[in-house]
């Protein structure tokens, strides 16, 4: 019998790739976790083997959406939860696009995939059906070709209503930072979800559905929708994102000296103007797109026009760009050409590589080559800052290279530094940094945040609000921010709308208008429990903040607040660790599997 689907009561789809079995569970006991990142983390905690290898067959891959997905503007995100092959601890990555909406109307709040298929498959999910289908013919193909094939195969789900997520050759090859492409232009970028799918021989997931949910109180809901919609389209809260987009950060950050350039040998880029959001906006921006349910539309598409042969032989493509990409595949690699940056982004897209970690790995290799630290014959290409073609070749080698150097590079910059030396690997706790050399806040954020991601606690923003602050002063604000973000990501609002969904009164009203009652105290406790569970999982997976290696480069290149002091940062990290001890001591473990940690 088909179960009813009600908002606020998690309905979980479990798929075992080893046996091919499918199970749907309604889990009122998990309603307390609301949805999104908290729900996904809880499901991961139930199913993961914390000490087994990240790519072991039994390991789960969890997807989660929010209780208000598609119901309110800019609630567009879904998250993936897994053990990260890159850091060896908590893997969590968020994506927009249409996936969250597609899962909502298919009737699922979360998806848990376990096991490993014997042959390449893809998972097709609708409101009436769940099927594993053969993916053998397109195993090996790019994310773009795979997307095209699945669009043609899965017409029943309806163009515009369905979502297609897939890996490229990087995920198949087990590159530790392979990403998953979501529809066109969005990604589960960080921490190697692509390698997890690859290890399961799961090439893609296609979802869509035609469910309709009755509105319990139409008037109340419409009033609340109208209020949020007006804030989203009219207020300055979202303006930056639909004008120049996140790329508008590039010029100011370079002027401040916080734009990592040439593997952070410098904090400002002399060609920043050429690769700025303004320059892209003026010359190459051809259109903007939105994630489903977002009237803002921050996805900026640039025109890549490329001569592929002598004479007048050209092709063109639309490539999405954002600040982090212009940093990782732009300034960090000394790239001065807008078109060439778009070409590098496109290469990473097709292979299914996380652009941020890839940029950092390429920058490390370039500097290591300059310094003679790596075997030239294994490298096989003349990597140099500002040179596009060798970088394109290197991305291909990251996926297909067979030498020890490329095998090591597939594991990230920390692995490269461990094998070849060079204390200039731009990573903390194994995850490569974002494009903000702003001060202690960003380093603390990357070192100690649950995902080691800049969006855990926005240390880069804290640095800019409190220039020159002592690092120990930043610990509590960072933890408070991370806890608060666990609530925003429970709704699975886009973090760009954190000013809208940071308003507790509005959040309570939005939930209540859809029949989900929560108090402020409950939402606060949700944030705190989620943060606690994430850190408990990390420790169970073996992560220790104590003794974390801090690459010397972070202290060599001045930030806007001057050169950073290693001893001060280490002291702040110790303080952070004590705060996490206190957090973990507050409550007993949520699941038996975590009790020994």
């Amino acid at each position, binding site marked *: 019998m088909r179960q009813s689907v009600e*908002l606020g009561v998690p309905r979980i789809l479990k798929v075992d790739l080893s046996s091919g079995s499918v199970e749907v569970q309604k889990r009122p006991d998990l309603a307390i976790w609301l949805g999104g990142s908290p729900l996904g983390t809880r499901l991961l905690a139930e199913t993961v083997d914390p000490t087994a290898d990240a790519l072991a067959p039994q390991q789960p891959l969890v997807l989660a959406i929010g209780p208000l997905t*598609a*119901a309110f*503007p800019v609630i567009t995100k879904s998250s993936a939860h897994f053990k990260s092959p890159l850091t060896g601890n908590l893997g969590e990555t968020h994506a927009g696009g249409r996936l969250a*909406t597609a899962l909502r*109307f298919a009737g699922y709040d979360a998806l848990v995939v376990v096991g490993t298929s014997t042959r390449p498959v893809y998972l097709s999910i609708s409101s009436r059906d769940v099927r594993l289908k053969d993916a053998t013919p397109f195993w090996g193909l790019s994310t773009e070709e795979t*997307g*095209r094939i699945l*669009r043609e195969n899965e017409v029943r789900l*309806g*163009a*515009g*209503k369905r979502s297609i997520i897939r890996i490229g050759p990087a995920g198949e090859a087990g590159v530790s930072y392979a990403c998953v492409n979501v*529809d*066109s*232009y969005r990604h589960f970028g960080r921490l190697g979800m692509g390698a997890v799918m690859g290890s399961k021989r799961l090439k893609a997931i296609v979802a869509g559905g*035609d*469910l*309709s*949910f*009755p*509105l319990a109180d*139409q008037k109340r*809901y*419409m009033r609340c*929708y109208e209020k949020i*919609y007006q804030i989203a*389209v009219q207020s300055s809260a979202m303006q930056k994102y639909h004008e120049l987009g996140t790329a508008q950060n590039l010029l100011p950050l370079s002027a401040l000296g916080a734009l990592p350039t040439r593997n952070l040998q410098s904090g400002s880029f002399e060609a920043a103007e050429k690769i700025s959001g303004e320059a892209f906006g003026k010359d190459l921006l051809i259109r*903007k*797109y*939105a*994630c*489903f*349910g*977002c*009237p*803002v*539309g921050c*996805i900026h*598409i640039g025109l890549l026009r490329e001569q592929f042969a002598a004479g007048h032989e050209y092709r063109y493509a*639309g490539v999405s760009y954002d600040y982090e990409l212009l940093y990782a595949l732009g300034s960090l690699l000394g790239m001065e050409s807008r078109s060439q940056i778009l070409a590098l982004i496109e290469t990473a897209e097709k292979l299914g590589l996380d652009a941020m970690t890839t940029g950092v790995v390429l920058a490390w290799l370039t500097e290591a080559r300059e310094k003679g630290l790596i075997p030239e014959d294994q490298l096989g290409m003349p990597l140099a800052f500002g040179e596009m073609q060798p970088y394109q070749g290197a991305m291909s080698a990251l996926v297909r290279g067979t030498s020890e150097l490329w095998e090591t590079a597939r594991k990230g910059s920390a692995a490269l530094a461990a094998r070849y030396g060079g204390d200039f690997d731009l990573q903390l706790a194994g995850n490569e940094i974002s494009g903000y050399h702003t001060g202690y806040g960003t380093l603390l954020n990357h070192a100690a945040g649950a995902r080691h991601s800049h969006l855990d606690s926005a240390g880069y923003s804290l640095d800019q609000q409190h220039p020159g602050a002592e690092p120990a002063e930043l610990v509590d604000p960072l933890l408070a921010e991370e806890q608060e973000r666990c609530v925003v990501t429970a709704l699975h609002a886009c973090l760009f709308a954190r000013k809208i969904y940071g308003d507790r009164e509005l959040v309570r009203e939005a939930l209540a208008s*859809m029949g989900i009652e929560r108090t402020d105290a409950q939402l606060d406790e949700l944030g705190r429990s989620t943060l606690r569970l994430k850190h408990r999982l990390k420790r169970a997976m073996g992560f220790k903040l104590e003794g974390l290696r801090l690459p010397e480069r972070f202290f060599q290149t001045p930030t806007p607040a001057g050169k950073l002091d290693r001893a001060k940062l280490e002291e702040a990290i110790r303080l952070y660790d004590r705060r996490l001890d206190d957090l973990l001591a507050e409550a007993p473990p949520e699941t038996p599997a975590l009790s020994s940690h």
Partner: protein
Amino acid sequence: MAKLLRANRMEECIGCGSCMLACARTRYQSLSLNRSAIRIRTAGGFRSSLIADYCLGCDEPVCASVCSAAALTPRPGGGVVLKKERCIGCGRCAEACTVHGIHYDEELGYPVVCVHCGVCARYCPHGCLTLEDTDATER
């Protein structure tokens, strides 16, 4: 004077879907993509412009002409009016429309029909959709 919905600037559409959600919640008291008389779809990924399927407001609507139960009748000024209690659920209206402007909803038991109220246009952040006076509208 009757008004008709027009999607004349779809090349500026960002694909946010706000129009569909507005139609469903306003006219069908639902959180739904299915219960929207306008449907936005992609023409193969995001590589090209988005497409709106909606009722173009025919003067002599074929959907009404194939409706044997007379649930659909021509609307003065273009399009159709639905008397849902008369609908027998055959779905021929949806089959007959060559521009996918009307579709049958199994759960409701009658078709989702555009009434050209313009609530979708009100929630279009880019002004791709408009409600136009019938006599000013070219078809």
